[in-house]
């Protein structure tokens, strides 16, 4: 998933615009509270056709973490 695709996913999930979007940005700085994050994860699961567990979802801190998850670099509950 590219940064641009992630930006579109974020916008369609929350109804807000995210410009600029950078990998180092913290999700809390984008106003993504826990429910937004879970909804985002749910859409990602649908797109990626895989299950993302709670601990993995709750460890997401930055846009880069989301990109890594979307590209399969992060597996469930990797510690």
């Amino acid at each position, binding site marked *: 998933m590219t940064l641009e695709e992630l930006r579109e996913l974020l916008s369609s999930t*929350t*109804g*807000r615009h995210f410009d600029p979007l950078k990998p180092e940005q913290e999700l*809390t*700085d*984008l*106003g*993504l*509270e*826990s*429910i*937004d994050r*879970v*909804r985002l*994860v*749910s859409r990602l*699961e649908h797109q990626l056709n895989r*299950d993302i*567990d*709670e*601990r993995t*979802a*709750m460890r997401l801190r930055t846009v880069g973490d989301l990109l890594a998850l979307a590209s399969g670099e992060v597996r469930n509950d990797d*510690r």
Partner: protein
Amino acid sequence: MEPRNLVEVANRHLDGAFPGARRGYYDSASRQVRWVAVADMVREAFGFARRLSDALPRRESACLLHDLEPRAQSTAILAAMAAGSAPLVLPRNALDRGTDAFVDWVRATFDTPPLLVSESLRDLPESLPVADGSPAATSSEQSDRAPYPVGDLAFLQCTSATTGSAKVACIGHDNVLRNVRGIREHVGGGDHEVVCSWLPLYHDMGLVGCELFSLVHGYEHVSLRAYDFLRRPSAWLRLVGEFRCTMSPAPNFGYQYAADHVRSDELEGIDLGSWQVAFNGAEPVRVSTMRAFVDRFAPFGFRKEAFCASYGLAEATLAVCLSHPEPARYLVIDRETVKPGAAAGIRRSGSVFEATAPAVEKNELIVTSCGRPLSAVSLALDAGGVASGAAGMVGEIVVRGPSVFRGYLAREDGSSGGELHTGDLGFLHDGELYVVDRLKNIVIINGLNYPTSDLEERVGRVLQVPPEGVMVFERSIGGEASSVVAIVEADPGAGPIAEDAAQALSGLLGQIVFVKRRSLPKTTSGKKQHHLARSLLAAGQLPVIKTTPLR
């Protein structure tokens, strides 16, 4: 003889008082429910209690439960009680502000060092011992006896979703037993009910209303994680249907979320006809939400009579008033009369599910009835120091009864004396409670409480202004919509207002209103006057520089 505490309740499970009582945990990966007999869980809890007891820094130490698997969490709650301790289920985000901030909060809150029970944490300072709370550890030993005498307190509970300035409420075993028996009596619960829940156990509705309610009455109980509900809300409805659940609670937000986000293709074959009591509380209960839920799910068997609007709070253990079995009702009142001592100006009344949605004018407020108090609870309305039961008079809701909590932990305002000033404003009409406003500085977002001071600190951090110049409140507590607004003092001459940074607050706030410096109303001692600020904002009497909508 009736059990006097929750460990005696657990013993009754071992004595076979509730044959077949079982607890189910939904596993999202397999989409199956994993069942455990409650008696087996009790044996594991009593076994785990020995380990906990050995690890407690002192006999009177509390057990803080952090990041546990759902089944391990149920076991650990009971184990802590059986070890003579009291469990506190920490909010999910308790460590989001870092380990140091968490340790500071623990030290400021607990006079006696607690024991942390966690699956993932290991490296805390030596003064905060940690016990392994993994599924393997919590189920490794079994015992038929609780190892230590039971303490006075059943559990502790944070009264808000953040630990930053959270107060910790102390709930006694008798408080819990009286409240869950009162709920059952009020809604006419039978000997065999099936409870379904997705509520986290740091939430009073999840811990008392589902976990302990089911344990005490020997009811079957199936649960899923809040996480699983949020990413697939149909899973909740599917469990209710599949296991013929009769009781399931949620905050108003949960019903709205399901009505908004369940996909139609996920509803095939779901039958909600078994659902007898759909408790709705923890935040204002909205007419529009109940109507939307019924519109969406009546075709799948949901009965509108199942809705049970409620009023409760952690300091009353849980429930104070419940509308069931009366049909859900609303009143439309004059906004001008929402103030202590005024007679509520009732303009219209009706049934929540009448054919046409009720129309509400700008100067009116629509409020749902929260029903009548539980049988052992008495209510009074306090308007300026005089508590009155006078019908129709608006006042602070004062609760008296056997489930009023012991008090807050380690605070000077500790002891409740059996009387609870709730900080909520309401009135009684035809014996039913209507909640119209909130005097305490709490904002409720998606059923979770946040102290305004925590939110003000966060707004200050994001916008890089001192929190003393920020006020956060909800524009309207009753009514059909609630919008959280932050008023921020800004100096137009000092450079541009940080509107870009404000985006980080869009998940919490609906709007930021920038006002001139020194215009926020405060008392002579510097205490913020949130209510006055809200009135001034509504009346257009604050010197507004700019209003920034965030959603």
